[in-house]
């Protein structure tokens, strides 16, 4: 899977938000925010095809977390991205 064309991560006042440049009207009244680790993973996979497993490995290499927890967190994160229409 990969992040759909047009979505870009921006840092504004310390918050990571996703701006949807793929659509004509950009609705800044409803934005999707990512926390720091989610933003890290976003940057890791941005612009390329990735798998959940690759994300887990990235997370494990950067953060102090146990594998089962990492797998659970990545799955939840990817599910939320799919639900929000961010990935294809």
């Amino acid at each position, binding site marked *: 899977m990969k992040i759909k064309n047009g979505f870009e991560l921006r840092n504004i*006042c310390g*918050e990571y938000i996703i701006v949807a440049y793929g*659509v004509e009207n950009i609705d800044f009244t409803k934005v999707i925010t990512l926390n720091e680790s989610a933003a890290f993973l976003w940057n890791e996979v941005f612009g390329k095809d990735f798998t959940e497993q690759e994300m887990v490995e990235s997370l494990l290499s950067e953060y102090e977390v146990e594998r089962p927890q990492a797998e659970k967190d990545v799955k939840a994160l990817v599910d939320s991205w799919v639900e929000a229409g961010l990935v294809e």
Partner: protein
Amino acid sequence: MEQMRKMSVDNAVFLPMVVESIERGHTATIIARGNSMRPFIEDGRDKLVFGKADKVSVGDVVLAEIEDGHFVCHRVERIEHGIVTMRGDGNVPCKANGTGTETFPIERVRAKLVQVIKPGKTYTLATSRTWKIYSAIWPRLLPLRRYLLALYRLLWFHQLPARWTKKD
């Protein structure tokens, strides 16, 4: 899905990002903040859609960076020799602010208001008859504006002027 929460961001950081998206050819929707464009536009409730300001005319409502990092969205009152004067619909001249207008070079206009989205109805300014009538009449009522706005606050918000004090 994650929960919804409110996020407040400083204009000086937020609006350049909004302007960037407009320069990239998009329209951008934000929530209106402040009372300076009353009575039509209401703080926190109405949404504003901005587009490119290719041509600026008197009567347009524009978003301008009047000083670096300082953004204001008001109605254009006059354009003379490349200098724009604008006035908020909800602003009155008074001792504190002099003429109650902002004056700046036209190059500082960053976007033009193209739609106002109120709960229940969206106004596309280029074609809305309501907007055209309001825009033609309201600026002409400037001598009465102070009283009309006071009436508006009283009727819609049950707010009395802050300087009135209760008898003890």
